């Protein structure tokens, strides 16, 4: 990936962090480190976030009662804080998903038509 592509990915990452977090939590309850690891794995390394960037968003979602937080003790006697997507969060996520898809499809449509026009003019 060249520098321009990386810069564009960074901009897109900024605007989609929240919906991606909600998407992961809609799959199952997760703790902080797990969220980062899952995000990286499911995006094949493209959405590689630093964990700190999640907490302001998680905190906001907590304050809006979209998610909840539960402390659990693991088999190794370690305390893990799991984040859980609440019903209101699920509704919010569905709305964001619709808006996100609509926007991305539109962008894709415009980009495709530009490519088609360029191909036609080349021929």
């Amino acid at each position, binding site marked *: 990936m060249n520098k321009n592509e990386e810069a564009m990915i*960074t901009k897109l990452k*900024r605007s989609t962090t*929240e919906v991606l977090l909600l998407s992961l939590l809609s799959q199952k309850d997760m703790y902080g*480190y797990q969220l980062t690891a899952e995000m990286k794995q499911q995006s094949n390394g493209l959405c590689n976030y*630093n964990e*700190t960037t999640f907490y302001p968003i998680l*905190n906001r979602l907590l304050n809006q009662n979209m998610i909840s937080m539960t402390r659990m003790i693991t088999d190794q006697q370690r*305390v893990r*804080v799991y984040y859980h997507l609440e019903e209101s969060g699920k509704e919010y996520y569905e709305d964001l998903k619709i808006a996100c898809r609509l926007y991305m499809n539109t962008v894709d449509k415009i980009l495709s038509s530009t490519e088609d026009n360029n191909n036609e003019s080349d021929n």
Partner: protein
Amino acid sequence: MNQTTNIRPKDIRHYLKDIKKQLLLTHSKAETASIIEMLQTSINEFIEDNPTATMEDLTMHFSDYTSLNDIELYNTDSKILEEKLNHSKTIKKIAFIVLLLVVLAFIIYAILCVKTYIDIQNSIDAYKVIEIK
């Protein structure tokens, strides 16, 4: 927390302090405290999972405080940012007015001191005629 860790509690405190400073630019004190608490918990989890991790590993995983601003400024409501900026402007104005008042008070004090000195000097007789009978 594992005591054999390479990460000193002092370094973690320093790291959290840096993050806190950045968060306060875009969040209230209460929100910042809450985020820092979440982060602290997660740092503990990280150290428990990676007992041999160094401070560099921790910073790489959790991000340095500068990259935090990139995402946060983008996700912060523009109204909140405007309020923060206005608040900052108001503080600057108040600081300027206070400074101006202090300077004025000092000038008035200096003038009064000089005036008092001159009055005292004037009240002292330069010479006195003593009549010898």
